[in-house]
């Protein structure tokens, strides 16, 4: 009790003076953020609440439904395809997030050593795939890996002994799609890492070199700790992005064993748009939303803690 009265009696003394400034600050903040807050509320908060509400109904994609409690969720957790979709998505995240981050860092370290025009050219080369639309990426790789006519089949034949359709071989499907995805998206990671590397002052390296630090020591003691925040950012962006994997899996899997190669978003898409089961699809969407929130918060916190150590 005494501590509370103490703080309440002391606190106003400190805070009284800046109150007027506070208010104008508050107005400025409101004016600047209001447009965003309105759009955020209309385009994100409201639809999200609607989605949660829809997930508690037996409803078609469009039109009214009937409230049925959590039975959509009960059904979802008993759905064979849900567990397939969940594990496929987790597998894909594992296959794509860490390789594309490490590869991005590796390429960035290399590109960063180049100077001037050469650097721009090389950087552009690595970034080029990133600007391609997914349909073009799909066409390129389907063509390159075609079983009959693909230019990469001789290489596959060296390892497998025969030509094979990698996108129609279950065990190779996810690794192949992850490979294509890494090829496609790593350019963006390279860009982020380069920005991070350029932020490290050359003076630090200079003095480290004077002190006799080896290249490896410079990397582990200077570069790695100083770009850790960028690494956390890249990992988090990639994690959220890859959890929502849809386009590539949908395109490469279309017409094939799409049940066995299904991801979470595809499960939502199929139920909502193909089977007209809006309520059920919404429950799958809510679960995916929850998974992404939990994972990204967890990952961000974990990585931050490690970075602060």
């Amino acid at each position: 009790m005494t501590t509370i009265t103490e703080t309440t009696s002391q606190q106003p003394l400190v805070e009284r003076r800046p109150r007027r400034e506070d208010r104008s600050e508050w107005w400025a903040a409101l004016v600047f953020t209001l447009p965003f807050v309105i759009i955020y509320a209309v385009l994100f908060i409201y639809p999200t609440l609607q989605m949660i509400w829809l997930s508690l109904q037996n409803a078609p994609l469009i039109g009214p439904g009937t409230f049925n409690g959590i039975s959509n969720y009960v059904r979802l957790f008993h759905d064979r395809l849900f567990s397939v979709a969940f594990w496929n998505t987790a597998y894909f995240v594992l296959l794509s997030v860490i390789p594309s981050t490490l590869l991005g860092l590796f390429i960035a370290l290399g590109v960063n050593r180049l100077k001037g025009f050469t650097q721009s050219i090389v950087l552009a080369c690595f970034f080029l795939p990133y600007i391609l639309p997914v349909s073009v990426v799909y066409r390129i790789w389907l063509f390159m890996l075609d079983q009959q006519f693909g230019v990469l089949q001789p290489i596959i034949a060296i390892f497998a002994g025969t030509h094979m359709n990698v996108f129609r071989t279950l065990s190779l499907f996810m690794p192949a799609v992850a490979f294509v995805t890494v090829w496609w998206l790593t350019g963006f990671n390279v860009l982020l890492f380069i920005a991070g590397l350029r932020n490290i002052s050359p003076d630090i390296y200079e003095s480290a070199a004077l002190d006799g630090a080896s290249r490896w020591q410079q990397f582990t003691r200077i570069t790695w700790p100083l770009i850790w925040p960028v690494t956390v950012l890249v990992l988090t962006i990639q994690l959220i992005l890859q959890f929502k994997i849809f386009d590539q899996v949908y395109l490469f899997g279309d017409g094939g064993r799409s049940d066995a190669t299904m991801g979470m978003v595809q499960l939502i898409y199929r139920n909502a748009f193909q089977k007209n089961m809006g309520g059920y699809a919404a429950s799958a969407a809510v679960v995916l939303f929850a998974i992404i929130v939990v994972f990204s918060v967890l990952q961000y916190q974990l990585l931050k803690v490690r970075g602060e150590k």
Partner: protein
Amino acid sequence: MFNNGRIAVIRNIVRAALLSSALLTVGVGGALAEDTIVWWDFLGGGDGVRMKALIDQFNTEHKGQVQIQATTLDWGTPFYTKVQTSTAVGQGPDVMTYHESRIPLGITTGALSVITPEEQAASGIKSSDFEPANWKQAQGPDGKQYAIPLDIHSIILYYNKDELKKAGLLGDDGKPKGLDGAANFDAALAALAKTGVTPLSIPTADGATMWRIFYTLFNQQNGAQFLSADNKFLDGDANIADATKALTEMNSWVKNGYTPAKTEYPASIALFTSGKAAMHINGVWEVPTMVDLQKKGQLFDWGAIQIPVFYDHAATWADSHSFAIPDRKGNEVPAAKRKEVLDMIHWFNEHSLSWAGGGHLPAFAPVRSSDDFKNLKPNSDYSSLAATAVFDPVSTLAGVASPVYDAAGNYLMPGMNGEMDPADAISQMQSDLQGQVQ
């Protein structure tokens, strides 16, 4: 003076303005007398070009009366989703193309309006002008008509005359001989293989193609029924046996090395057009590919026929591009506009000969029996399939880009390519589809 002059100028300007706006009103009024039909379709590629030419012809012939304003959207699920969402809020076109196989789902999502017998009669549309199965496929469970067919499209057997001749399989009429009956067909494949050519190329990596071939072979057996009247998929042992028999036959082509496994759609066509494969099974919509190549002198002497009879009787999978009028909630297409739309649909059926250039068979029988069509090759060589065409099961789970098509990719595709035992594949497909029945 100066003042008066100024007033005169202003007066003139006002007069000119009044006059021009009056003229404008007349102009707009004139334009309004010409009605517009808003049209949505999903026809891309060569089909899109051919349909655009027909639309242009219609617009030219109906100048001053009615004009079609056409928009082409993405084929498949995106198209049908857009139709569903727009009709729910009273938006959307006056007329749209629709796959007959999608009509059951279209009815349950409330996207389609009924075309009454009176409306049909008023526009000269008669059911007797269409194949009964084709006409019936556009009806709901209530027996009402929801669409008017434009074409019948199916799968056919493309063949290389030179290669067939080498294997002694070409008749004097330039058509293949001795392919009817599963045993004979297999013997023909063996004979072709002996000449060193790949006997048969199929898009074996494509679930949709698996479905079309499977459904053809399945329905060629007496009594086979994929979906029973009480919504049971492959009901009873007899149906399971028929389905297994069809898939086992398909699997044998791959197993014996007659058909390359897991071949992508474009590659399977390239195998045929490059002369590496002697025969090819694919949709009629690839006819323009062959015709164009031949025109450029880049293709051998080729032909196309109805899929041979493997079992008891002729039957071929088919679907149909049809016309439907959406049920725009709260903003229904007015009666007068519906009349114009149905007149337009009838006009398109009467002029569907040029649509046949896309390989399709006109649904409208008078066009199919015309001399012009009989001279259209190779269409007239396979037009016999129309009479025995079997359409997709009538179910919200069937039709293009449906769960049944997905099941074909999941079970028939690995079944044909030897990744799954055909009997297992059929029983798993049956339980999967039955499990999705609500």
